[in-house]
C-alpha cells in the first residue's frame, strides 16, 4: 500500500459513494476516510462496511486526523455552499482539494481537455466543473480546436433518481458554473447551460446535447473527425460515453447528441452523470497522486 496516496471523501451521498467504489479499484489512491454530517447515514454506514474511518462531525471531525493518517488528497462531494469552508480547512493541513461541487474556487479541470494544464499549476484546489460540464465541455473543445466557436450551449437531461439533494438545492450553481466552463475550458466565446430533470420510469440514461455556433461555415469533416477522437478519449475513463446522433450541421450550427451510461458502481447505469463526474475526479486525483509519488509535486499547507 505504500505506493498509494491516501485520500478522504467529504460527502457520503450519491457522488461520494460512487467515487468511493471507483477509488477502491485505483492503483494510485487509497481512500481511508469518509466524512458526513448525519450519524449512521446510509452513506457513512456503507463506507464503514468498506473499511473506511468515518466521522459524522463534518470536516471538523476529519481535520485532526488528516496529518496523523497521512491523507494528502481530499474530494469534496457536498455542495457549492459549504465547499469554500471545507477547502480552506483541508488546504491548511497541506492536503489537496479535488472539488466535485460547482463552487469553482479553484481552476477548472476537464481531463481530456486540460488535465495537464491544471496539474502544471500545482493548484491546491482544483474544480471538476459539473457533471453536465464533464459530459459536454470535451465536445465544445473538440469543435473549438478546429475553428472559432462564437457560442456554445449544452442541455443535460438527468433522471430524477440520480439528482441528489445537493444538485437540487444548488441548481443555479450548476447552470452558472457549467456555462463558465464552456467558455474557459471549452473555448466558446459565450457559454450557456440548461439542465432538465426527468422522473420517467425506468429512469432515462443521462442525455447531453451540445450546440455550437461557429463563427464561419463549419468544416464538416474536420469537426466530425475531432469529435470522434475526443469521444474516444473520454471513453478511456467513461466507457458508456456514446454518440447517439450527429454532428448535425445546419448553417453555422453544429449539434451533437450524446448518451452517458455509467458503470453501475453505486446507482444503476442510467446515472451516467455520477460516473462522468466521479471518473473525471478520480482521474485528476490519480495524476496528482503520481506527481506526489514521483516527488515532482509536494503539497504544502496553504
Amino acid at each position: 500500500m505504500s505506493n498509494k496516496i491516501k485520500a478522504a471523501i467529504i460527502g457520503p451521498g450519491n457522488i461520494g459513494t460512487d467515487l468511493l467504489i471507483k477509488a477502491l479499484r485505483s492503483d494510485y489512491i487509497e481512500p481511508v476516510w469518509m466524512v458526513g454530517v448525519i450519524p449512521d447515514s446510509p452513506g457513512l454506514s456503507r463506507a464503514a462496511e468498506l473499511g473506511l474511518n468515518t466521522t459524522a462531525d463534518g470536516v471538523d471531525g476529519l481535520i485532526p486526523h488528516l496529518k496523523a493518517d497521512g491523507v494528502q488528497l481530499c474530494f469534496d462531494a457536498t455542495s457549492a455552499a459549504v465547499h469554500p469552508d471545507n477547502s480552506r480547512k483541508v488546504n491548511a493541513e497541506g492536503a489537496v482539494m479535488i472539488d466535485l461541487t460547482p463552487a469553482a474556487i479553484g481552476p477548472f479541470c476537464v481531463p481530456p481537455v486540460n488535465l495537464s494544464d491544471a496539474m502544471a499549476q500545482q493548484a491546491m484546489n482544483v474544480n471538476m466543473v459539473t457533471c453536465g460540464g464533464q459530459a459536454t465541455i470535451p465536445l465544445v473543445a473538440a469543435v473549438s480546436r478546429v475553428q472559432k466557436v462564437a457560442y456554445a450551449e449544452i442541455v443535460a437531461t438527468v433522471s430524477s433518481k440520480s439528482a441528489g439533494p445537493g444538485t437540487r438545492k444548488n441548481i443555479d450553481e450548476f447552470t452558472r458554473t457549467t456555462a463558465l466552463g464552456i467558455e474557459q475550458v471549452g473555448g466558446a466565446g459565450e457559454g450557456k447551460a440548461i439542465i432538465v430533470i426527468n422522473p420517467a420510469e425506468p429512469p432515462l440514461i443521462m442525455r447531453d446535447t451540445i450546440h455550437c455556433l461557429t463563427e464561419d461555415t463549419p468544416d464538416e469533416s474536420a469537426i466530425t473527425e475531432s469529435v470522434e477522437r475526443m469521444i474516444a478519449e473520454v471513453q478511456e475513463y467513461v466507457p458508456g460515453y456514446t454518440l447517439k446522433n450527429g454532428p448535425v450541421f445546419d448553417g453555422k450550427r453544429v449539434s451533437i447528441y450524446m448518451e452517458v451510461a455509467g458503470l453501475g458502481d453505486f446507482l444503476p447505469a442510467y446515472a451516467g452523470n455520477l460516473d462522468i463526474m466521479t471518473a473525471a475526479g478520480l482521474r485528476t486525483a490519480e495524476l496528482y497522486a503520481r506527481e506526489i509519488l514521483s516527488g515532482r509535486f509536494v503539497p504544502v499547507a496553504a
Partner: protein
Amino acid sequence: MNLTGKKITVHDMCLRDGMHPKRHQITVDEMVQIATAMDQAGIPMIEVTHGDGLGGASVNYGFPAASDQEYLTAVCKAVKHTKVSALLLPGIGTVDHLKMAVDCGISTIRVATHCSEADVSEQHIQMAAKYDGLDTVGFLMMAHMISAEELVVQLKLMEGFGANCVYITDSAGYMLPDEVSEKVTLARSELRADTEIGFHGHHNLAMGIANSLAAVEAGANRIDGSLAGLGAGAGNTPLEVFVAVCERMGVHTGVDLFAAMDIAEDLIVPLMDQPVRVDRDALTLGYAGVYSSFLLFAKRSAEKYGLSSRDILVELGNRRTVGGQEDMIEDLALDMARERDSA
C-alpha cells in the same frame, strides 16, 4: 354548476406562452401596444417573458426578438393598473434573472418546475418571498403525470418555500374536467387557507374553458388564459371566451368583455403567423400528453427529415418527456429517419 358571486383573477399569457407560436419573435413595440390595450380593458395580470421563461434565449428554445430585460422594462413602464409577471424555470433561468426582472418592475414571479420536481425551486422561491410585496407563485407543470396525492405533496413544498400562490398546470392540454376537479379539490383542502390556487390550461382537447370552470368550482381563484388563445399547442384557454362565460355565470373577473374581444380580434389574431387551433398535431399533444411547446419543433424536424410530426409527438409521449426537452426532438427524428431508411 353554480359559481355565482365568485371573484377570480385572470392572467393573460399572450406575451409569454404566446411567444411559442411566434417563435419568440414578438417585438417590444407589439408587446407595448398589446399590454397597453390589456391595461385599458381591465385585465388584472399579464405575463411577459421568453416562452421558456427568463433566460430562455437559446439555440434549444429559440432566440427572441428582444431580451427579457427589454420586454419587461418597456411593458412595466407602459401599464398603469395591470400587474406584470415573469416566468422562471430553474435549470434554465437563475436567481440572477429573477433579480433583473424585479428591477424591471414586475409584481409577480412564477417559478415553474416539472410536477414531481418542486424541490429544485427552493432557492428561487425563497429569494422571491424575501422581496417585500412580490407576489410569489409556484407553478407545477405537466400536472397530469402524477396523482392528486403526489401533486399535493409537491404543491406543499412550494408553499413551504414561501409561495403565496401555487398553480396546477396542464402543460400538455391533456386533463379532463374531472381530473382538474379532483386535483384542485384536494389541493384546496390540504393547503393553507390563505394560499391561492391557480389553474393554467391548454386547449389541445378544447377543454380550456371547461377545465378552468372546474378549477374555479373546486376552489381555484387564479385562471390563466390568453386572448384569442395565443399560446403553445392549440393555445391557452381563450381568455375572451372565458370572460364571457364567467359573465353569464355571474363570476366576477373585472375585465371589460367587449374590449377584450376587440384586442383578441384586432391585435392578437393579426399577429399570428399561423392559426393557433386544434389542428392534427395540437390534438396529438393533448391526446398523448406531450408538452405543448414541442409542437413547432416536431413540425420542423418532421419536415427536415421527411417524417410524420404526429409520429414524433406520439413517441415523445411514450418516452415520458418533460418540459424543456426540446433537444430530444431532433435527436429522436434522426433515430426515426435512420430506422426508416434501414427498413
